[in-house]
């Protein structure tokens, strides 16, 4: 059994069925890409896996490490080893990135403000964060800024991957991490993800475009259209989409080029 097992998952948003029974297994060490046109249900999939309260599971199962996660709150899923890089990271005023990262790390270690031996020390914290700043080309000063406040689109996405690198998940879901990124940012982000890639990490890349897959080679590619998988295969599926787009399923032009946001 794969580490993540999605079985016949059906999800609705505001009473409209978006995911119409999808199944997918992701094991550690594998990189899967889910591709699809706008409105196909890609973000619904990623948000549902993380437990966003706006998405209602109508049926099916999601098991992670053999455990039914659909009843778990997002924080419990995170502590279990799931990470979601958001498509639109949120601004939270007044809380520094430092404080955020430290609190998240402490939460993962079961530190609840009481047993100080569980808390990450300042020295260890630096050793966990600083190496990734270099790869992601993030200025150290970002850590003293408030969460995503005044960050450009690319900076937000890079900081998402920084959080991933620090929290070391076993399953990372990257929700359109490439959208709105200039080519340099895509390179930095991809380099960081490739560094983290390995036998202990499963990756689910959710994307509209094939461009990021040139930098992060997927092992499997699944095409999501209108809430169902219509095609699954190896990296060659991405090449097919690169050439033909989603025109076989929907009336949409080839997705190879993105209009930069």
């Amino acid at each position, binding site marked *: 059994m794969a580490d993540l097992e999605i079985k016949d998952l059906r999800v609705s948003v505001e009473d409209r069925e978006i995911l119409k029974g999808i199944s997918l297994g992701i094991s550690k060490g594998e990189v899967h890409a889910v591709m699809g046109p706008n409105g196909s249900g890609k973000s619904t999939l990623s948000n549902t896996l*993380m437990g*966003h*309260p706006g998405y209602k599971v109508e049926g099916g199962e999601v098991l992670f490490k053999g455990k039914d996660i659909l009843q778990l709150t*997002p*924080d419990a899923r*995170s502590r279990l080893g799931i*990470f979601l890089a958001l498509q639109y990271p*949120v601004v939270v005023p007044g809380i520094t990135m430092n404080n955020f990262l430290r609190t998240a790390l402490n*939460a993962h270690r079961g530190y609840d*403000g009481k047993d100080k031996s569980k808390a990450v020390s300042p020295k260890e914290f630096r050793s966990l964060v600083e190496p990734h700043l270099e790869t992601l080309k993030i200025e150290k000063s970002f850590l003293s800024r408030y969460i995503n406040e005044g960050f450009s689109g690319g900076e937000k996405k890079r900081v998402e991957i920084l959080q991933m690198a620090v929290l070391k998940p076993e399953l990372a879901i990257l929700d359109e991490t490439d959208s709105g990124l200039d080519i340099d940012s895509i390179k930095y982000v991809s380099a960081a993800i490739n560094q983290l890639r390995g036998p202990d990490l499963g990756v689910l890349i959710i994307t509209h475009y094939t461009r990021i897959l040139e930098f992060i080679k997927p092992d499997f590619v699944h095409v999501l259209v209108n809430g169902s998988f219509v095609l699954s295969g190896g990296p060659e599926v991405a090449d097919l989409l690169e050439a033909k787009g989603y025109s076989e399923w929907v009336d949409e032009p080839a997705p190879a080029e993105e209009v930069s946001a």
Partner: protein
Amino acid sequence: MAVAPKINVGDDYKEKYGFFDPEKFVFKAKRGLTDEIIQEISWMKGEPEWMTKLRLKSHAIFLKKKLPTWGADLSVIDFDNIFYFLKSTEKQGTTWDEVPEDIKRTFDKLGIPEAERKFLAGVSAQYESEVVYHSLHQKLTDQGVVFTDTDTALREHPDLFKEYFGTIIPPADNKFAALNTAVWSGGSFIYVPKGVHVDIPLQAYFRINAENMGQFERTLIICDEGSFVHYIEGCTAPIYTTDSLHSAVVEIIVKRNARCRYTTIQNWSTNVYNLVTKRAVVYADATMEWVDGNLGSQITMKYPSVYLMEPGAKGDVLSVAFAGKGQHQDAGGKMIHVAPNTTSTITSKSISKGGGRTSYRGHVKVYPGANHCKSFVKCDALLLDDESRSDTYPYNDVDAENVTLGHEATVSKVSDEQLFYLMSRGITLNEAETMIVNGFIEPFTKELPLEYAVELNRLIQLEMEGSVG
């Protein structure tokens, strides 16, 4: 607690430390207020005749003045059932057993030392920090700074006292200012001479035998030309008192080129009506900053104000209010632009939770001829649930030309997207909410001395856990 080292204040503290108790009086505390009681208070304190007369005159004004018809409902205050003056020894009527459990729990969670708990709970009248205060006191004296309680100031600095007392907030200002002037006791008196910068914040706590937590304290601060002082009153720990009415008056004079910052953190127990008049007059190129945090009490009505008297004067109010279940925080600020080229800002942050209510009430007035003034008001309210409430009452009154007036108000709820984001990183719902609230008041917290900021964040955390009563 951001306080001096702790000394055990046990039952034998009187013998050990020499409790200040000048004479034995026949004065017997009575409920209600009469001219006789006032005369007795004044006589007992050994006050000059002018003060006795001022108290009596203020009492007459108090009786004539009506309760404010706006703001919180004050009609339930029973003025005849209040002790207007208690000697400190009589105040120790409370025993530790009588202190409510929720207050004790909060002390526990904040890690307040034993001796301090008794003081804060009204069990012990004295908080001893003489050792630390002594060296500070010497330094201040060398600089010519006067920092004492207000009763002592009347005795020891009569001329300075008489020159300023009641000039900023006269008894006729409002019913509660009249009441305070009639029955005031305790509070702080500070005089900073010309050009002197007091480089550490002066805290009410430093004073020995402090009565700074009295019901009707009276504070007077005079910053002479080019001087600077930062005064801090209160603390984040809950102050338990059986007195239901707290009505203080704070008067501040900031002369040319001087700067005064007055920081308040108040966390009265939730039976208290906290009705405070605070006002500063500011002269040329001088600055007054009110940093005002209100957490406890049942009702707070407090609008620190600044009168900008000469060009270049600057006024700031930065306030935070937290209203939980059954609480109404009616707070804000007033900026009165009397002279041209004066500037002011009011920043108000309020948080309502569990059905609590916060109101921002502000007044910006620009007098005729006070041209080229600038004022900016920003009030942000955060509601933590659907039962809680927040209102904004901004009044602007501009009779001058070329005035820049800005007003920004936001009311927001803790957003689901922010919560989801923080939780998706492993942070629990409660901790995520606490972080968002602490982030919301960060513009306030960052102005506090570090130890107060840490305590305030911790207190918010307790409030958010619902473990504070």
